[in-house]
């Protein structure tokens, strides 16, 4: 039986206040019986602690449990990223990048031609980019419209010229035919005049014998 002012088991398990611990330490220094009792308790505790904690056979993995499923947004993103849709998405992204690059190309050249620093191009605001894209698209559109109008005019002129040539050719042919007819009429008229003259001469002729 211990004669310590406080329970040695409370002292062993650190359940005493600091002042109480001090009192127990002072008592232990003077009481061999209590010192031996405390030693037995410590040996018992040491013996128990030779049984070590075991490692868990496998990790506690709750992430796969239903309650740990990611949010609907995350699930959708994962599903999308692992599906065939991403091919379409990547294709669209590449196409957009190509269009943007193509649209900005003349402007970039212009920037280079003007010997302005490249950093200035990089520092363009979204509004400037939109403005340049719009200008480039407008220029391309104007050029395309101009080319189409010029081609249409040219084709129309060609068709008109061809038609004119055909008309002129037909007219020339017609004139030639008219001229040939006039020529025949003239020859006929000449013949008739000749006949008339012969007749007149014949009518007015008096024989010297008469």
């Amino acid at each position, binding site marked *: 039986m211990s004669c310590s002012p406080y329970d040695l*088991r409370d002292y062993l*398990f650190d*359940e005493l206040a600091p002042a109480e611990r001090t009192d127990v330490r002072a008592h232990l220094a003077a009481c061999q019986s209590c010192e031996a009792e405390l030693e*037995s*308790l410590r*040996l*018992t*505790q*040491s*013996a*128990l*602690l*030779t*049984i*070590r*904690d*075991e*490692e*868990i*056979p*496998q*990790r*506690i993995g*709750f*992430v796969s*449990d239903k*309650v*740990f499923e*990611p949010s609907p947004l995350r699930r959708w993103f994962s599903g999308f990223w692992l599906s065939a849709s991403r091919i379409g998405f990547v294709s669209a992204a590449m196409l957009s990048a190509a269009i943007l690059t193509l649209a900005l190309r003349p402007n970039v050249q212009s920037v280079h031609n003007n010997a302005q620093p490249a950093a200035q191009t990089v520092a363009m605001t979204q509004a400037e980019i939109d403005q340049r894209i719009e200008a480039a698209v407008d220029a391309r559109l104007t050029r395309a419209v101009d080319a189409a109008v010029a081609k249409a005019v040219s084709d129309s002129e060609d068709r008109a010229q061809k038609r004119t040539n055909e008309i002129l050719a037909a007219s020339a042919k017609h004139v030639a035919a008219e001229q040939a007819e006039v020529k025949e009429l003239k020859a006929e008229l000449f013949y008739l005049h000749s006949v008339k003259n012969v007749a007149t001469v014949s009518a007015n002729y008096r024989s010297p014998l008469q």
Partner: protein
Amino acid sequence: MIFRAVEDADLIHRARKGDVDAFNLLVSRWDKRVFNYILRLVNSREDALDLCQDTFLKAYQNLKKLEEASRFAPWIFRIAHNEAYSLLRKRRPEVDAGEGLPPDHAKTREYPVELSLAAAAALDRLSADQRETVVLKVYQGFKFEEISEILEIPVSTVKSRLYTALELLKSELAPTARRSFS
């Protein structure tokens, strides 16, 4: 320990808001202790692992019911205690929980020294209630108030169970330990 308690409280706060990573970190900090506590109650690694899983799952589902984040340790051990005793009641409904169970961990222990075997055997001879107080005090280092909270019994009962068990263990183990350590 103070910093650890603060960090645990922060993790609990984040986990309550749905941060799964924070809860997983909390699990990784406590799973070994909870597993070994349950293992010493049920004497089966497979059961201990399943119960440990169930303990943390219930903890996650009921995290908002934890009033004080600083009381997480007694709270999670209370859940583990309930899980273990629920199994023990199913396993041996006619027998006092934990009594008479085969001490398989004593036979398969990785520390087959005389003292370790003697300690395991002495622990198995305790009643389930006595053994649990020893486990919570000696192996888990809880204060009497915390053990009282985990077991939902008065502090006086905790001390009574523990000290009765300690006297039994001392009579069995102290001579062997003295020989081993001398």
